[in-house]
Structure formats: C-alpha cells, structure tokens
C-alpha cells in the first residue's frame, strides 16, 4: 500500500492564509510516521484530508497511485482505522457499543470474542470494570485506549493515530507500540511525545 500527498494546499477559511502549503509526503508499507508541530499547525487536518472529510484546495492525494476520487476513497477507508483523541462510540455500556464497528461488512471477520477484548484491555492498562460502564462516563484517556484496542483488534493495513501516547504511562506506551507496530502496516501518527517520536521511522514537522 502506498499513500502520496503531492503539493497539497489546504485552508479551512479560504480567505485566510493556507494551513498547508505545498505539502508533500510519500508513505509505504512498514512506515511509522510521526507528525509533530504546534497545535493548529494542521496535523489532524492531514488525517481529515486523507480520509476524505476535507478536500485539498490544490494538489493531489494518491492511494496506491490513484487519486482519492470517491471510489478509491471507499477502498482506502476499508483499509484504515482511525483513533481520534476524543473517541465517541455513542451512548450505552462499553460492552454494548464496543462491537458496533465490528458489525460493518469490512470488519466482520475480525470481530473478537470477549476474552480477547478483555486481554487487549489488560495489555493497554484498562481495568476490566470499564467493560460494564457507560461509555460516556469513561475518561478521555480511557476512551482513547478503547480506540487503540479497536485499532489493534481490527488489524488494518493503515492506522491513523491522533496523539496515541498522550494519556499513557511509559509501560503502556511500550505495550501499544509492540501491539500495533508489526513492521508491515502503515502507521501515521500525530504526536508531541519525544518518546513516541524517537521510535518513528520518519518525522514530519508542520509549522
């Protein structure tokens, strides 16, 4: 798999000066990319552009050498998992809302049994008790770990992680890296965390 940003310009407010100017990046299987930069520099925007939630003002984004037109975009989205910083799975107990993403046709074959979910939670330092809690009552950090657990269990070829280590202690960080980084998939991550950035194969700085 290959993702290419080529001379991408983008601004939310078309009158203001662009957030991204002539941004280019080529990513292939096995890359662990760290995107750093101050908040508001457009780190998360890169994910939104790649996922097709926003469209570049100029320049192109390619997935496997084809432009991200609607059909190609659908193919890409079937290969991706995205862990936002503030995960929202909806109202209900975690045990009820957790499986919803696994009911999608693209993910059904990956649907884990409860044992596997709980052992993944343990590896990420999530207590077993969260399973029966209202999802909306979990802390932001706990919700993000739930997102990381989903990403791990979905086992996709492309992972987009928003500040994956911001809510974790060092031991959990190590576990996440070991769980997610298999040397084959593409991982794009935004991060402020020197520990995480040190372990990325490439660092992109946005200003």
């Amino acid at each position, binding site marked *: 798999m290959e993702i290419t940003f080529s001379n991408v310009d983008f601004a939310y407010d078309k009158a203001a000066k662009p957030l991204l100017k002539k941004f280019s990046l080529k990513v292939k299987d096995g890359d662990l990319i760290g995107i750093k930069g101050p908040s508001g520099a457009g780190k998360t925007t890169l994910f939104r552009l790649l996922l097709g939630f926003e469209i570049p003002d100029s320049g192109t984004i390619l997935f496997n050498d084809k432009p991200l037109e609607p059909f190609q975009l659908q193919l890409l*989205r079937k290969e991706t998992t995205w862990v936002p910083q503030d995960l*929202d799975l*909806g109202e209900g107990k975690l045990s009820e809302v957790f499986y919803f993403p696994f009911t*999608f046709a693209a993910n059904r074959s990956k649907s884990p049994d409860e044992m596997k979910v709980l052992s993944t939670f343990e590896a990420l330092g999530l207590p077993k008790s969260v399973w029966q809690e209202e999802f909306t009552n979990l802390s932001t950090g706990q919700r993000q770990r739930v997102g990381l657990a989903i990403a791990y269990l979905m086992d996709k070829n492309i992972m987009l992680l928003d500040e994956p280590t911001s809510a974790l202690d060092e031991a959990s960080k190590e576990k996440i890296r070991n769980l997610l980084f298999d040397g084959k998939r593409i991982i794009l991550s935004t991060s402020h965390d020197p520990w995480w950035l040190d372990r990325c194969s490439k660092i992109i700085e946005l200003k």
Partner: protein
Amino acid sequence: MNFTWGQLSIAFVILIIPALILWKFKTGLLTKMGIAVVRMTIQLLFVGYYLEYLFRYDNTWLNLGWILVMVIVADFATIDRSELKRNRYLIFSIFIATFLGVLVIDVFFLKFVIQLPNIMTAQYAIPITGMVLGNCLQSNVIGINTFYYSIDQHQERYRFFIANGSTQEEALFPFFRNALKKSANPTLASMATIGLVSLPGMMTGQILSGSSPFIAIKYQIMIMLAIFSGTVLSVYLGIVISSKFVFNERNNFDKTIVKKD
C-alpha cells in the same frame, strides 16, 4: 343532532375564562389566543365549505387533487417545524415519503379492509387521509429533526465509523434507530392508553353525530393501526430518501441542512 350557527356563536363566550386567567398573569398570550381562535375558525369554515362541495361532486380526480394539496401542505409544514433548511431535495424527499405513506395506508384500509368499490370516495378517503397525514406530519418532524440534528451534533462519531471501514448505511444505523425510536414512541404510548385516559376525537365525533359506539370503535381501531403503520413507513422513507441528498459521494454530511440560530 345539528345545531345552528347562532348556537355555535354562544360557544365562543367560554373564551372569557381562559382570557381572564391569561390576562391576570400577564402571560402576553391574549393576542396570540385571538389570532389562534380566528385562524382555527376561518380554516375550519373553509374546510367545511370545501368538503361540502367535495362530497357533493365526489369526483375521484377532485378528491385525489385535494389529497395532493394536503400532502404538499404537510410537506412544507414538516420541513419548517423540523427546523431544517427548506431546499428542493428535502421538499422532494418528504413529499414522496408522506405521499407514499398515505397511499399505502389508504389503499390497504379502504380497498382491503372496508372494501370500498372506489377507494377515492370522499366520505372515506378524505378523513382517513387527513388523520394519517396529521400524524405523519408530527412523526416526520420528530424523525428527521432527531436524525439530522444528532448527526450534526455527533459528526465525529459518524466519521469514526466511516474512517473505520463502514458504508454510509452502516455508519447511519445508530442515528436511524434513534430517530425511529423517538418518532414511534408517542404513537405507541397513545395506542397503549387510548380509551382509558381520553376518548379519541374521531370516535367522539362519530358518536356525537349518531353512530353506535361499536361502529365508532371499529373505525377507531382501524385508524390507530393506519396511523401507526403510516407514520413508521413515512419516517423510514423520509430519512432514506433525504439522506441520499444530504450526504455527498464522499459520504460527507451537508451541514447546511441544519439551521443554526
């Protein structure tokens, strides 16, 4: 028993009671009350005269035309009350949803239940359509308002699903379920308590004009089934059809559908 227009005018005297109460507490509702009463009277006078002619001619096409007018009015009222932007796609979607909802119900109940030789007989087609339509309007308002406003409010949730490989239908499923639940609940609640808490207006009207209570409840049971089935069908269709226009080919939500103050 019929009564005269003169007698009816006595009925308006009762308004002194609510008017005094509303005035005493400075609710500022007196003008509003005046307008509402005048509108109600004029609109019903108009409908009365109109229906009188409609019933006299009892022409299939004329009746169908009147039903279309009712559907169009309901269509616009649905969109305005749901606080969504009145664009042509939404007008089209809600029109189809309301019209189909009413049509299926009319054909089923008038053709197969009451077994009329001509289902477009004014005496049956107009009141039953009106009852179903009024309820479709209320349910559709709740349904599409809940659907689009909760997507607007929880866009990141929708995007999370899309970004994790869902199709648009899959990602919309929880929003759809929620909208259906909210819109079906009031009708279900009124079905469950009907006859115990209040006598339904239609049945009361039939009894007042001389029908036996047994005939009246048969019609009332039929109309409740018609209302419930018609509203669920039309909420479903309204969301299915309108969502084809509100999301683009990249599955992105067109926020402009939601009116923000």
